């Protein structure tokens, strides 16, 4: 039954996903076309016009990216609300499936949709930035990619630990995405407690969850800085020579602190998500009250 639930969830998510993917493709192609055709070697009027068009295009591109991320969040939220707590809930909650299966199917499908959009956004930003840098500095793609990897290696002190780094970050991103989706669903479920203003209740619950999460994140970041100070035994010396022993030790300490911070933040998000998952489950099994 879980497979069937996921199949129908996926069907429901597909159309908005395709629309957003097309939108991303469209704005990426348009922005890259504008970048490639930017001409600063013409007379002043055309140069000004070209600059203005570029600025407008970048703004449009930014709005498109933000719109896609907000869009997928809204699609997930609205779909969950409609299928679980409006008239459609009469169908959803009378299917021969358990609340656990229902929540699992919705969480997995929504997290996958989120992941797809985030990956598309990363690809789009990478392509657009690469096009811009290639156009501005007249370099080829291989050189740019190698430079990017070199910067990443130096700044993070990774050396040969790329696969581990990528696995670690991928896990963190996936766990964070799942936590975000569960948080969104939890907020909508908690909003159902305000029987007369369910949508307003969901928005208030969502804001409250964000505040709680932000509070704990800030606490972790503050503690992380303390750990960083403790390891370096000194504050950052801006005159440190790039590549020196001291520079390397500071980078290593900063990375260590960052990894601990990241891990703790993901852990806190997971703990909050676990609570919210329980809230959604409880709402569906014990407090469901469809209008």
């Amino acid at each position: 039954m879980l497979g069937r639930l996921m199949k129908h969830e996926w069907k429901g998510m597909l159309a908005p996903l395709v629309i957003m993917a097309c939108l991303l493709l469209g704005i990426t192609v348009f922005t890259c076309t504008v970048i490639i055709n930017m001409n600063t070697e013409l007379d002043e009027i055309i140069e000004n016009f070209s600059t203005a068009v570029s600025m407008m295009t970048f703004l449009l591109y930014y709005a498109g990216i933000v719109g896609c991320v907000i869009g997928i969040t809204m699609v997930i939220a609205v779909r969950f609300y409609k299928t679980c707590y409006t008239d459609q809930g009469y169908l959803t909650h009378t299917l021969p499936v358990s609340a656990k299966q229902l929540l699992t199917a919705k969480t997995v499908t929504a997290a996958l949709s989120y992941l797809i959009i985030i990956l598309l956004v990363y690809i789009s930003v990478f392509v657009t930035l690469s096009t811009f840098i290639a156009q501005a500095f007249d370099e080829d793609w291989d050189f740019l990619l190698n430079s990017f990897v070199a910067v990443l290696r130096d700044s993070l002190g990774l050396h040969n630990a790329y696969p581990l780094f990528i696995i670690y970050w991928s896990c963190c991103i996936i766990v964070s995405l799942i936590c975000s989706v569960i948080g969104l669903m939890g907020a909508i479920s908690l909003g159902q407690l305000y029987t007369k203003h369910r949508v307003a209740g969901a928005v208030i619950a969502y804001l409250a969850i964000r505040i709680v999460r932000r509070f704990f994140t800030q606490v972790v970041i503050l503690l992380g800085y303390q750990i960083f100070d403790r390891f370096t035994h000194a504050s950052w010396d801006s005159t440190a020579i790039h590549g020196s022993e001291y520079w390397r030790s500071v980078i290593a300490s900063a990375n260590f602190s960052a990894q601990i911070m990241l891990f703790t933040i993901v852990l806190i998000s997971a703990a909050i998500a676990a609570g919210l998952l329980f809230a959604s489950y409880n709402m569906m099994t014990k407090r469901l009250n469809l209008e």
Partner: protein
Amino acid sequence: MRKIMEEQFQFNEGFANEGFAPLLQVDDLCKKYPGSGGYMAVYHMSFAIPRGRIIGLLGPNGCGKSTLIKMINGLLAPSSGRILVNGFMPGAETKRIISYLPERTYFDNNMKVSSAINYFADFYADFSAERAYDMLGRLGVNINARFKTLSKGTKEKVQLILVMSRDADLYILDEPIAGVDPAARDYILHTIISNYNRRASILLSTHLITDVENVLDDVIFMKNGSLMLYMPAEQIRSQMGKTIDAYFREVYVC
């Protein structure tokens, strides 16, 4: 009235004494909504429904019919008491054998009728897509139409067809003929009567009694969340010398 109540008690007890488990058993069921003060939407209800009966759940608006139906379907948790459907508490197991038609239309407006059929076929092992296509064909519904293009009445009929295309053990129909014209009511009742599994029971909630009373085997009267009467329809007619509709008007006189 006293005599009728005594016979009703014997009628209820009869199922237990016959030595078979009832299809639906409700024991001392209560429901109080949060924030409703002390008001009980359902108050200490107990009854049992055997197989092979068409039962009218009758009562005025706000008497607790829909609350009771939602609890049987697992859409509401009881405050106290117990519901057993074929021996199981409401859950995935009972949803497999209950075919429920709510008051609301529950399909996404962007969904096609054919997708709704596929949806039912995917989730309900007892669903007959052929029967659904046949009934929809006779009704003249385009299966490629989206729900948003259908009238309210047609949406309700499509929903009823899907619900009645299952070979369920218990059909629960909440106000299936409310808000539709008399011709549509006849169609709906005909669809119900000619399609239900004969080993199953139908619990039909309505306050339009005249239209349904001829198809009912038993009737349950509810008042203020309580069970007021549960007895065979024929018994009411013979003992009271009046139709169920007339008796209903007498009982619920304002």
